[in-house]
């Protein structure tokens, strides 16, 4: 479900990973073929007539599928309609792989309750840090041995802060530049106000602490209103500002601009993301990489599909 940048890439790369796409849906329509959808044709249809196919979008959920890939846009609150898609799949004992943050950031406990009742599993690697295997790393270490997590989880905000510091440019100028480059959306609120990073932190907190978190449990401050002079003052002292999300040992979750040394591991540049874990017995682990983008996020989705086998 979903044929935006991530959904498209998943459909295009699925064959390479040995999977067959039996249904593909966007908000306007769907195409279902138990023998395998002609992905190139479907995506061509979307580009020319606005939808992947003429069937009703909900028909995709009636296909003979094993794994539902939920890649519709992230919505807040009730996480509609992603949550309903997840429920439909789990109630029919299918697996779910999420690229959509809404269901696991806003309704994690509801999703896990459905998964408990189902023969299907839910995975959501792609929801945090794009291609970075953040969730798999926590699973591998054991959530109980990871005491804290923090990182740069929004490439748009990081790009803006990096450019402002490097070029001495103002926020508005760099934002406009980011929009021209396609790094920032026309409406950048979600990224620059910290909401996107906060959703990812809520998901990390849910994984580390066994649920109970949603967006409203995260203290959020964005990067709007950070003047160029603040970055100049930081640079004079060998420091810089990054939008950092933290899940602390005491269970509190916070997203906000923070002062870090310029050469700090967390001070990644441009659209890069980084996730840093504190572990009980093994010190600190850092994983950095591309935190967004169709093929990057699709890589995380398809890795999850592989883990289900």
């Amino acid at each position, binding site marked *: 479900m979903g044929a935006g940048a991530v959904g498209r890439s998943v459909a295009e790369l699925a064959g390479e990973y040995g999977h067959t796409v039996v249904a593909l849906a966007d908000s306007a329509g769907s195409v279902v073929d138990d023998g395998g959808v002609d992905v190139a044709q479907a995506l061509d249809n979307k580009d020319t007539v606005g939808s992947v196919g003429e069937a009703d979008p909900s028909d995709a959920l009636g296909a003979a599928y094993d794994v539902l890939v939920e890649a519709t846009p992230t919505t807040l609150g009730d996480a509609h309609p992603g949550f309903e898609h997840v429920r439909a799949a789990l109630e029919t004992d299918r697996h779910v792989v999420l690229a959509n943050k809404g269901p696991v950031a806003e309704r994690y406990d509801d999703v896990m309750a459905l998964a408990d009742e189902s023969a299907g599993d839910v995975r959501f690697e792609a929801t945090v840090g794009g291609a970075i295997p953040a969730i798999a790393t926590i699973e591998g270490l054991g959530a109980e041995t990871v005491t*804290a997590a*923090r990182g740069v989880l929004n490439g748009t905000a990081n790009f803006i802060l990096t450019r402002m510091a490097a070029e001495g440019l103002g926020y508005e100028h760099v934002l406009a530049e980011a929009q021209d480059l396609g790094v920032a959306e026309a409406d950048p609120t979600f990224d620059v106000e910290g909401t996107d990073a906060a959703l990812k932190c809520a998901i990390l907190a849910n994984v580390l602490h066994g649920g109970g978190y949603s967006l409203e449990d995260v203290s959020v401050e964005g990067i709007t*209103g*950070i*003047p*160029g*002079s*603040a970055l*100049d*003052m*930081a640079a*004079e*002292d060998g*420091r810089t*500002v990054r939008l*950092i999300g*933290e899940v*602390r*040992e005491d269970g509190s979750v916070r997203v*906000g*601009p*923070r*002062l*870090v040394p310029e050469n700090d591991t*967390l001070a990644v540049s441009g659209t890069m993301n980084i996730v840093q874990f*504190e572990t009980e017995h093994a010190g600190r682990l850092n994983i950095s990489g591309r935190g967004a983008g169709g093929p990057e996020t699709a890589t995380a989705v398809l890795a999850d599909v592989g883990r289900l086998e």
Partner: protein
Amino acid sequence: MEDEPGDRPQAHTVRLELVDEPGELLRALEPIANNGGNLLSIFHERGSLTPRGHIPVEVDLECHPSRFPGIIDALRDAGVNVIRVDREHYGEQVTILLIGDLIETDLSDTLTRIESNASTSVVDLSLSGQNGTDDVSSARMRLAAETGNVIGALDAVREIASEKDLRVVEPLVGEP
């Protein structure tokens, strides 16, 4: 008495621990004055006690560099407990940014209030010029706080800033 030319007096901060008895403060100050130290200020932290139940006193003094070791020795010889010398007693330092209309909201009052917390001091301050288009300016501040008090110091700064509608960009602290 003249010291070597070029040797200018330097300021030092000495932190002492006094027993709560009459005459103790005078007993502590005499070795400073008698050994060429010029007293600049005495900060008697009434109401705050050290873990041993003694009273912490912070003394700012000025002397020629060659005199300073003698002053510390004389204090110790007089049985005065010198806890820390100069900035070192502040176990931790953190750098923060303050953003907003710093001038209109009375920067010196902001600093005074940050320092009103006995365990916090502002050891360095740099201020940016205003942008011209609006009244937003930025300041970088290095705060020194006693070990274990950094989080408390940051909480206090956050509170003062929020009252004055200023923004604080904090470092990452309190994590291993």
